[in-house]
């Protein structure tokens, strides 16, 4: 639910629930965006992506 919807109420419940869920989705989204962009850049630079752990 987004704050501009008619059901939205500015109370503690909405801050906690939706604040947490949007924070988590942002972290996941930013993390994946970073990985994808870095991979594109690495590929363009000719890196092979060798991972010593695997």
């Amino acid at each position, binding site marked *: *639910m987004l704050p501009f919807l008619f059901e939205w109420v500015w109370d503690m419940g909405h801050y906690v629930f939706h604040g947490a869920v949007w924070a988590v989705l942002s972290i996941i989204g930013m993390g994946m965006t970073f990985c994808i962009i870095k991979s594109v850049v690495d590929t363009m630079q000719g890196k092979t992506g060798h991972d010593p752990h695997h």
Partner: protein
Amino acid sequence: MDSALIPEGVKRCSLWKFLLALALVSAVLMWGVYAMLLCWVKGLNQTNMNDYYGFALWIWADLAVIALGGGAFFTGLLKYVFGKDELKYIINYAVLIGFICYSSAQLILGIDVGQPLRGWFIFWHANVHSMLTEVAFCLTCYFIVLTIEYIPLSLENRQIKKVPFFANLTHNMHSAMAVFAATGAFLSFFHQGSLGGVSGVLFGRPFSFREHILIWPYTFFLFTWSAAAFGPSFTLFVTWLTEKITRKKLVKDEVIHMVAKISGWMIITYIIAKSADTLYWMFNTAPSQGLQWSFFYQNNPFYGKWILFTEIFICGFLPGLLLIFKATRENPTFRVTALVLGIIGVCLNRWVLVLQTLAAPVLPFDSWVLYIPSWQEVATTILPIAYGVILIMISHRYLPIFPQERELNPIDAPPASVVSRQPAPTAVVEGQSA
């Protein structure tokens, strides 16, 4: 034909044998799909749920698989946040099992909700006073995290990793995995807890109602604790089962013993807390509501005191003790017995808190109401198991899930005469069986 897809340096069964096994499991899967379609097309009248049992076999299965899938978040937390590096040899499998468990839980919920097309309502029209809303939010987000954790593993397929972008993506996702693992642990803490909290806040159901710390009933913490305790046990058990089926050693004993020890200590501390909670409920919470605890274990043909004894002693203290003592932990028979007992214990705990809670009478004129699931409920509960087996079969065949497999199962070098005739000897030594 598929040998080009099999990881280098490991042996797999022949393709026809693999396809035959896949077909057998798929037959079970199709039975479940048929039952699922019946539920979707004809509605929830296909189940034996009623006004007493709004939660039934599906919700029990949901809670059980989520607890058993807890190995993924706990192993990830220990490896990426607390730096237990030895766990890298089993983390892939823990993630795969977690992915299967959580996707199964979502599948079951998709059937249970009755109107899957309205599944998004819980996100858009969220009731912020409901623990189940928290569960839905965290479960969905954590499933996204598990998918992200599974992606690099699937990109390590022998052919896919030849594509430079995918190789780089795998590398970069591994580098950022600590962030995802920490997020997953945060989400798991809350959704595992809230699943327990759902029963703990039911003040109209004195069998499951518990005292609170702030807004969280004790069951909130016990559920998270038990998932972290028994989840690794389930990972170890499935690893053992996979080793037996493939007739290969896949993970070194030191790693198995370490995870078993961690699981054992988590189980024993959990079961002490669980016992304290039960005693407090017996002698404080239930009497404060005018009830004796023994009332919840009598006058019915199924729920006797045996269930409490089994959960706490046979499937709690016993597996915990077997796993914390070195001699029994390192004995395969005792260890596997402990793992099985632990798995039964956590499933029994979820059964009791979902089904026994609803079975116990809450009004003076009420009586015990027992429930037997319909075949459609059973089939749709078996469906995720078949799906999980298929995903494990495919992942094990085509992905390097076990980093130690090659070292533990060296492929014999072919005879020198054969090697001398080969134009590319390395290809022979790699030795995939088709």
